[in-house]
């Protein structure tokens, strides 16, 4: 029982990341009809927003204090981060919470990147075949990735989780099972965070007028256009929104997986599989499939399972995708008429 619950927990944070990326992919696909291979790069850019923010906070002033000597006899260098010198305790606090705080940086940055990307490149590809869209966004992903590599190097850069959430939580206590199910706090936070973001996106689409227009546009773009609504502009904003979702997903994932320049590609391939399993154009399907595949993957990496089928943890997601695509051509919850071939 414990082992099963633990695996479900294990799957939830990864599933959350898949779901968030897949959600953005589906949004873009449903609205603009564009297959965006650069979406993983947006996730990666979000993660590097956190890295940049942390670097900014770590800028230090170095004062050489001649009265004190180090053990080697050289004058002691007193290093204080500017942020602490200026803001005192709040600075220390901010420093500790740099990862969640960098969401504030990531949102405007990702929004701008998303809108620039859409206006500058993607919009010329609405009417081009899907193969062209895949190719151009694939090229774009390489470009983004290489620029990041140039500025941040090829090695993963670990980011600390806030001290308060650095330890492990005993999830069993919440369920009345005593001191069992030790699990890192931050991963639980990540799961809750992803639920929150998913809820926010759905609420935006469901309960605001703006969201209603977007949904109407997903159904029938031309009619909405005929009603005098500038649907393209709204879709551009939706692209920006998808970029923000991917970005914050990346920001919060940094304490779990130290970001490096090609993390986006790895997540992209999996997220595409998630989208296809969930059903092209179905937001609910993307989220459900994201969590489902995350949990399946963590079950497959149990030692007991691996003993029966070696290597299953490496391929389970792809295997599920193959089976689903062959049995349910539209995916789990695919809408009729979207990407039928």
């Amino acid at each position, binding site marked *: 029982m414990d082992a099963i619950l633990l695996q479900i927990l294990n799957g939830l944070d990864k599933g959350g990341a898949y779901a968030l990326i897949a959600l953005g992919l589906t949004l873009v696909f449903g609205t603009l009809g564009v297959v965006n291979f650069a979406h993983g790069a947006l996730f990666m850019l979000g993660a590097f927003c956190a890295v940049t923010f942390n670097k900014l906070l770590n800028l230090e002033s170095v004062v050489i204090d001649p009265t004190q000597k180090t053990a080697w006899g050289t004058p002691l260098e007193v290093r204080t981060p500017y942020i602490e010198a200026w803001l005192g305790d709040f600075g220390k606090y901010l420093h500790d919470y740099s990862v969640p705080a960098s969401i504030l940086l990531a949102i405007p940055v990702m929004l701008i990147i998303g809108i620039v990307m859409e206006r500058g490149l993607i919009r010329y590809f609405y009417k081009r075949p899907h193969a062209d869209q895949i190719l151009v966004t694939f090229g774009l992903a390489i470009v983004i990735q290489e620029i990041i590599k*140039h500025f941040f190097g090829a090695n993963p850069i670990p980011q600390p989780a806030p001290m308060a959430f650095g330890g492990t939580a005993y999830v069993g206590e919440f369920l009345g099972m005593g001191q069992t199910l030790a699990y890192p706090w931050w991963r639980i936070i990540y799961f809750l965070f992803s639920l929150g973001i998913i809820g926010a996106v759905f609420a935006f689409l469901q309960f605001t007028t703006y969201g209603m227009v977007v949904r109407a546009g997903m159904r029938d773009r031309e009619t909405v256009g005929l009603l005098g609504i500038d649907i393209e502009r709204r879709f551009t904003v939706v692209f920006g929104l998808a970029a923000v979702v991917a970005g914050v997903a990346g920001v919060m994932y940094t304490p779990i997986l130290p970001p490096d320049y090609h993390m986006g590609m790895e997540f992209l391939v999996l997220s595409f599989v998630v989208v296809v399993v969930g059903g092209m154009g179905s937001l609910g399907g993307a989220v459900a499939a994201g969590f489902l595949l995350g949990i399946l993957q963590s079950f497959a990496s149990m030692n007991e399972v691996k003993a029966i089928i070696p290597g299953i943890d490496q391929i389970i997601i792809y295997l599920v995708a193959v089976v689903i*695509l062959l049995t349910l051509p539209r995916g789990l919850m695919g809408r009729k008429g979207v990407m039928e071939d």
Partner: protein
Amino acid sequence: MFKGLSRNDLILLVGFTAFVLLMPIILKPVGAAYPALMQKFCIFGIFAIGFNILFGLTGYLSFGHAAFLGVGSYAAVWSFKLFTMNIIPAIFLSLFFAAIFAVVIGYVSLRRSGIYFSILTLAFAQMCYNLAYSVLTPLTNGETGLQLTLRDPRWIDAMFHEPGAGLPRATLFGLDTSGGGLGGFYLCAVILIICFYISMRIFRSPFGMMLRAIKSNQNRMRYTGFNTRPYLLAAFVISGMYAGLAGSLMAATDPLAGAERMQWTASGEVVLMTILGGVGTLVGPVVGAAVIKYFENIFSSFGPDTLHGVFSFLPDTIEDALVSFLSLFVGEGWNLTLGVIFVLLVIFMPGGIIEGLRRLWVIFTRKRDGGDAIPAATHPQPAE
């Protein structure tokens, strides 16, 4: 042998053959005339020709072709390890295994088309890659890559002669192919020409016509009573075998195999080569492969120092700014250049280099004829 080929095709074939065989002389002025690079042109040319048979003719975009390349490499190295250092069995073994993989993967993937096909092939390639890295380590030697060792049995070789000191080299009946000499290059060149000829026959055959018809309108094909799937599967397997052949040649010129050859970035590279040259054209993929490998070779050997040397005539401030900007694109940053080319190409010249040349040709001839326009393409492109 040449029946059914038009005069233009024959000229193309002869010209291509002459060019490939004379590459060591022709490419001297551009500094690419050393065998290690030229055999790369040939190997990736074969890979791209094969990819083009699938993507160019049927329009099915496979994002997992590198898997076959990897399978071919592994099969060839195993043949070197177990049987003989002669490359003939290695090539046949690679073709065999690549074909089996292609039949299985193609049978499943071709049930869907469009983006689903791309994702399915990608999924299969990633599965192969992940397995090669993890569970199949006894077969693939994991991250280190599969290499020759002194303890390999090499049964067939052992029957005929005593093993010499040191690692043996891959040979073609005594002709050393793995030393980076001209032997390896001419092996690859001859195979490239054969591959080019086969691809030309496919392009001009009723079978090729059928594949093109699938690209332009698959439903209509089905309505007229053709079952399109066997044709697609045949195209997929042929193109997979081309990839396997390229993989075995990689092993023949340098006997090791690693899982990174199967990664999906490698699949992306062959897509890029094909598009750069010209999708659906005969020579395009080879041109694309050669151009990419050539520039990869040049750009990645550039460093800031070389750039400073080139721009030393400029004032210092401008020079520094220019060099620091350009150094983004060279050396380690070669992939960035590749990505930029990729994006620009898809936006401005989806037809690739061959299409660009054709347009230039039209402009050129129109001026001579005084406004008498010649149709851009003699072969009308099928509608997307």
